[in-house]
């Protein structure tokens, strides 16, 4: 680890191991996410991408190893203290995980009501602004319920909700999986432009290298519980690693 503060990672995962019911999923993952970058974690289905991501905001606790956010070791924090971290590290779930019993407006305003003292009018403005940021600014979906939305809309609303507290980092779990190519392009573009606009750090977990290339600055390949490869887009393209080549073929 470099001593220079500029190279200090915002999120660091060191020697992370995790198993469920005796099944070893992660076997010593080392990963650093630098401030402002978008790191794409690639990996096949069931390799533990979601499990890895869930350690970065403390939803899961390591069996071994440690997870750091902004110099703070998450292992040591209790659920309450983790709350403070989670306000800064937002997560967009694979299927959105919107609250079914709340309207779109109430979903997006939920974190604001929970954690800020904004007035009703301020909340309204902020929700409008967030909905515009995810291209749903025409005010037509705010009164709908999650069950009435398409998959792509759900992901966008989930993104708006995740951005509500202006986090320093956003963790995306498969932001484009299960969407048609057009919607995929749209979401990819949105992730890119929001990241530029707000300058937050992102970790994107996906098995789709094509959309990974479109959003990522740096890439890491998760295989058999370890990071098998990490590098820039050019390094990915130049790699002779068979698994990487295989991912590249699918991305063509």
């Amino acid at each position, binding site marked *: 680890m470099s001593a220079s503060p500029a190279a200090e990672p915002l999120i660091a995962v060191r020697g992370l191991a995790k198993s469920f019911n005796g099944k070893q999923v992660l076997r010593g993952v080392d990963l650093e996410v630098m401030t402002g970058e978008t790191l794409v974690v690639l990996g096949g289905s069931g390799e533990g991408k979601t499990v890895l991501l869930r350690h970065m905001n403390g939803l899961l606790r390591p069996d071994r190893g440690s997870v750091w956010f902004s110099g703070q070791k998450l292992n040591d924090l209790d659920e309450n203290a983790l709350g403070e971290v989670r306000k800064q590290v*937002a997560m967009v779930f694979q299927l959105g995980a919107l609250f079914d019993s709340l309207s779109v407006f109430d979903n997006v305003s939920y974190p604001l009501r929970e954690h800020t003292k904004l007035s009703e009018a301020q909340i309204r403005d902020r929700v409008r602004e967030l909905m515009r940021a995810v291209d749903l600014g025409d005010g037509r979906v705010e009164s709908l319920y999650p069950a009435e939305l398409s998959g792509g809309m759900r992901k966008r609303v989930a993104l708006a909700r995740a951005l509500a507290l202006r986090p320093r980092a956003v963790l995306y779990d498969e932001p484009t999986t299960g969407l048609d190519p057009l919607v995929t392009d749209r979401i990819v573009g949105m992730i890119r432009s929001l990241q530029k606009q707000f300058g937050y750090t992102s970790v994107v977990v996906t098995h789709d290298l094509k959309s990974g290339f479109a959003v990522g600055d740096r890439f890491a390949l998760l295989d058999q519980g370890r990071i098998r490869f990490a590098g820039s887009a050019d390094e990915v393209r130049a790699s002779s690693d068979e698994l990487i080549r295989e991912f590249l073929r699918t991305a063509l």
Partner: protein
Amino acid sequence: MPASINGMFEEVGEVAFLARDVSRNLVRRPFEARLLVEQLDSIGVRSLNVVNLTAVFSGMVLALQMGQFLGKFGAKIYVSRIMGLSLLREMGPVLTALMIGARVGAGITAELGSMTVTEQIDAMRALASNPIKKLVVPRVLACTLMMPVLTVIADAVGLFGGLIIAVAELGLTARYFYTSLLQNMVLSDLLSGLGKAVFFGYVISIIACHKGLTATGGADGVGRATTSAVVAAAISVLVSDFFLTKLFLST
């Protein structure tokens, strides 16, 4: 068999941990009054119909059976005493708990279970909000508070059912029925029933919340969790009723 017994103890342990988390969050500010009121309504007020229906018919059946049996000894006049005792001490709290375990327990598990399997519980945590405080505490509190209230109502409705039968079938007068009831009823009958009700309400809701929060595997898993919550609640009520009865009789 040993594995399933092991699993049972493990689960009891998990429920105990949840109970501890609930107590901790009970005292943590701010107190979520609005969420509690919502649950008092959905758990308590909306259970009135099933509870009343169960109580009135149970009271009538009890009076019929007792009237028939006591009639053989020419002791029909004791019907109201026996009814008071068995309703207040046993049938009121237990039948109410079984109905609440089925209606409310299943409802809680299904609701929390579907939130769990669709990652809504994780989403709450990821949004730095506390699902124990937001979801579990109001339900446990509401169920624990509402059970004795519903039980008192069930007691009264059950006795009313008994009164109808006593007058219509057994040839007793209403005045006799309730004067003899009031003469013989002691406060400890009512209180021991209410003590049970409080305990049952707490146990039912904790179990139901636990089953919901640990549901896995989609809609299927929610169904399984719901069934097992209702069964576990009923068994817990009936088993703990025995021990509570021992306890209350010996004090």
